[in-house]
């Protein structure tokens, strides 16, 4: 497992204990395509294909890619609005992959993923999580581990929902048009019994003021607000759950240019105040450069490059990352940049190209690229790339 290596290095190299808040391990999400007389599955849309990355506490990770690269699916799957096809989602040092399965399937998951491995005589823990679960397994056996991981599933689900929240792209469809803002905002905290009904006015008022909306507007309906204000309401809704991680899926893409920076600045201020962690999903590389500390680049369901922001923007190694950067229009007529115009369209994720998914459009592709899938390698410290010839463009 490549990821554990990355984590350990980080801890030692930077000399401080950066805690991994979210670890995405080999996440796969396929959607079936059904056809034929009996609607059988004939093919799969490989929306997310073996994606792994870590998100440390307090940082902002930018997940960037073009439409159809699977970045939104990653967000939805992390939130378990979609169930992952395979892979693990580890939050705060606990495997949460099975949280939203039925109790029976959750147990099967734990048995298949851990117990069967632990029972082998030559088993050695590969990472911290293995070690933790193996200790429990040794001390209290299979039932003990099951109790630890599957016991009280309902409570675990609620805890999970509180830990991870989402801010959506579309400020128009992300708020229920028939509900007053007060009820929209109070819904989550009431469902989790964080607050009681009489308190809701006070809590909601505070949250609104915090995102820069007059608390007296809590009785309004969403359509009485502008796009920017609605997005603020969306942020307040997430904030009210006291989450550790907020997934922002194109959170400012639909806003007018002059409103975007208001919302971006607000989100950065809130991050400091609440010690939030962000996973910022966007197609806009300039925005990602501004807001994030580390960047994950996706193409056609696969992760192609991940690196700290400065590193990535100074020396991108994957030809795709580099072309993407060159394609972003810069509002400075005097700024000279290398122009790389990619040929053709993004292929369909139903029939991804063989080998490296980027090879049909890659300006520096070699014969091997169409045959072998490049592995994700750590080329420099904390800078991984999936390319046979990194840095050749």
């Amino acid at each position, binding site marked *: 497992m490549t990821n554990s290596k990355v984590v350990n290095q980080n801890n030692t190299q930077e000399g401080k204990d950066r805690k991994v808040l979210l670890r995405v391990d080999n996440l796969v999400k396929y959607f079936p395509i059904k056809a034929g007389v009996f609607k059988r599955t004939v093919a799969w849309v490989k929306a997310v294909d073996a994606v792994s990355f870590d998100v440390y506490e307090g940082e902002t990770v930018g997940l960037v890619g*073009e*439409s159809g690269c699977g970045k939104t699916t990653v967000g939805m799957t992390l939130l378990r609005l979609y169930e992952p096809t395979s892979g693990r989602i580890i939050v705060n040092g606990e495997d949460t992959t099975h949280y939203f399965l039925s109790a029976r399937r959750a147990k099967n998951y734990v048995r298949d993923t851990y117990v069967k491995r632990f029972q082998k005589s030559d088993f050695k823990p590969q990472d911290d999580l293995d070690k933790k679960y193996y200790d429990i397994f040794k001390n209290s056996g299979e039932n003990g581990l099951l109790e630890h991981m599957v016991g009280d599933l309902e409570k675990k689900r609620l805890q999970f929902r509180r830990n991870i929240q989402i801010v959506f792209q579309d400020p128009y469809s992300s708020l229920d048009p028939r509900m007053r803002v007060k009820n929209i905002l109070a819904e989550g905290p009431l469902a989790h019994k964080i607050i009681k009904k009489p308190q809701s006015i006070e809590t909601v008022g505070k949250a609104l003021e915090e995102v820069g909306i007059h608390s007296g507007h809590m009785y309004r309906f969403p359509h009485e607000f*502008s796009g*920017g*204000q609605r997005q603020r309401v969306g942020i307040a809704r997430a904030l009210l759950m006291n989450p550790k991680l907020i997934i922002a899926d194109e959170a400012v893409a639909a806003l*007018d*240019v*002059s*409103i*975007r*920076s*208001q919302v*971006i*600045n607000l989100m*950065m201020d809130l991050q400091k105040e609440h010690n939030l962690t962000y996973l910022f999903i966007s*197609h*806009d*590389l*300039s*925005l990602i*450069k*501004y*807001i994030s500390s580390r960047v994950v680049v996706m193409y056609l369901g696969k992760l192609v490059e991940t690196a700290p922001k400065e590193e990535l*923007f100074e020396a991108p190694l994957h030809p795709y990352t580099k*072309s*993407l*950067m*060159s*394609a*972003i*229009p*810069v*509002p*400075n*007529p*005097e*700024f000279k940049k290398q*122009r790389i*115009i*990619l*040929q053709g*369209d*993004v292929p369909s994720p139903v029939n991804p190209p063989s080998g490296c998914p980027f090879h049909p459009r890659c300006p520096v592709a070699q014969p091997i690229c169409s045959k072998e899938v490049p592995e994700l390698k750590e080329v420099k410290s904390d800078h991984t790339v999936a390319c046979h010839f990194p840095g050749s463009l």
Partner: protein
Amino acid sequence: MEKNPLLSVRNLRTYFYTEDGVVKAVDGVDFDVYEGETLGIVGESGSGKSVTSLAILRLLDPKGKIEEGSEIIFNGKNLLTLTEDEMRRIRGNDIAMIFQEPMVALNPVFTIGDQIMEAILLHQDVDKKKAREMAIDMLRKVGIPEPEKRIDEYPHELSGGMRQRAMIAMALSCRPKLLIADEPTTALDVTIQAQILELMKELQREYGMAIILITHDVGVIAENADRVVVMYGGKVMETSDVRTTFKTPKHPYTWGLLNSIPRLDIEQERLYSIPGMVPDPLHFPVGCRFSNRCEFGEEKCSVEMPPLVEVESAHMVRCFFYHKVEQAQKLSKAGEGA
């Protein structure tokens, strides 16, 4: 500069008469487009940029009226005085248009070939066979692979980028003198956007046509336009050549806009935010339309509409206090250097 403009828009006012009141979507807009150049019109939603483009071709929906006193002079003729029939001969022939969303801008029940050929047959004296050949040529020219096959496909069978190419082929099939491109790449991915913008530049060089490029993306304007018109609240706020506007913006709105977007070319500590909301066209503020969001404004601004004045050669600004922006710009440049 001494050339005669291909298109002159003078005091264009376009009002929409709705149940809730009169929406002054475009309220006294002036600009010129010269042969062979690209004029960028930049603005946010409600700035009136798209309405301006539709007004030029007189394609507004029935609620919108072009007010008396407006002039749109194309090739020496005032388009607003032409009959509907005369206007029809200009549309698609002398002035063509491409739209933001090729998926909805192309008719879903006709093949792209049908739609390109229709434009050719309307304006050129050719038979169907010849028109088909011309359409295939056009498709090849805009970089659609296997045009002989693609010509018989329906819009939904093409990808977004290919659709926009087909749209361009349709618009350029009669070699217009002016192409109006209304957010032509907004719906596309950046790598596809780069392809399409490059294609438009190539075709412009080949055909020598003028382009009005309408977008909200200042980056696209900076890289593709020769001159720029900044619109806000139905009015032109600033206009000059692209370099001048982007290097030394003089209107508070332009300045704020350029400082509020995340950029690849410079390091930014914290983005500037233009305060307030995009104005509702039903309730523009009195005086300067930007006065309620402006940080440089004084009392005068909320009373009186500033005129559009030429502050440097060919650099027009609608602001009483543009020198304040000059100072702020100097300060921020100094800060960058430090």
